[in-house]
């Protein structure tokens, strides 16, 4: 049963990813990306990482998609069609991508993965304890660095997005 759910999810992921990079309507391409992200969250549920699936749904499907939709609505007319690349460039790029994919798959299928069969469920408490642990192998330092990074990104986004007015005000002072 899980196998068929995985195949359905993989099909949804790949089809909507292709639709997302080839659609000529901007807003539709964003919505196709949303479907892909939801399918990825379904994959995390299937692989038994519930916390990661929740993060995927809230941060990606909830946050980033809304952000991109806002920027599309601010910047584009909804009905505007995107210009597409030349056919020769498209063919060249897809051939290059297929060659790269072939190299990837050749390497993957020639590597002998030692799979360990263990049905161990991870609780959110485990992740939280490891994130805040001071011991060897704990992740307290990267956790704090990421929080500083998010703060810096927030301030930077505000400053850049209203840039012009801010500099004008500084000049008059």
């Amino acid at each position, binding site marked *: 049963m*899980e*196998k068929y759910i995985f195949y359905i999810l*993989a099909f949804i*992921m*790949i089809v909507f*990813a292709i639709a*997302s*990079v*080839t659609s000529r309507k*901007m807003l539709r391409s*964003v919505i196709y*990306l949303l479907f*892909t*992200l939801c399918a*990825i969250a379904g994959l995390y549920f299937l*692989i038994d990482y519930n916390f*990661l699936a929740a*993060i995927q749904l809230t*941060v*990606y499907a909830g*946050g*980033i998609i809304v*952000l*991109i939709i806002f*920027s599309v609505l*601010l*910047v*584009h007319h909804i009905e505007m069609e*995107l*210009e*597409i*690349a030349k056919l020769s*460039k498209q063919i060249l790029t*897809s051939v290059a*991508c297929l060659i*790269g994919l072939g190299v*990837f*798959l050749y390497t*993957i299928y020639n590597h002998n*993965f*030692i799979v*360990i069969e263990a*049905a*161990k469920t*991870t609780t959110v408490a485990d*992740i939280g304890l*490891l*994130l805040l642990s001071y011991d060897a192998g704990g992740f307290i330092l*990267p956790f704090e660095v*990421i929080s500083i*990074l*998010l703060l*810096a*990104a*927030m301030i*930077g*986004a505000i400053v*850049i*997005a209203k*840039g012009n007015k801010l500099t004008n005000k500084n000049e008059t002072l």
Partner: protein
Amino acid sequence: MIFGVSIYELLTVTSILFFIGVYGFITRKNLISILISIELILNASVINFVVINKYLYPDMLQGVIFSIFIIAVAAAETALAVSIIINLYRQISSVEVKDTEIMKY
């Protein structure tokens, strides 16, 4: 792990997703479309971390924590990129790559 699905199939799916993202990154001519392609590439790498953690080292959590960090960095990157795009649209009224010639203030 998913019962009946080998690690090779999962890695195949993520490789395909990654190269769809690369294709979009090269062929698209709009800044927001390029951002969408970057999201696809980042997501493919996150699934790789999670799958390899689950299949090869099920007792550890390093892959999950790294994917949490990747998601946080991706969120910060998207916020900054969107603010840059909006600022650029105010100045040159376009978000096409070919019109983007000035990045100095």
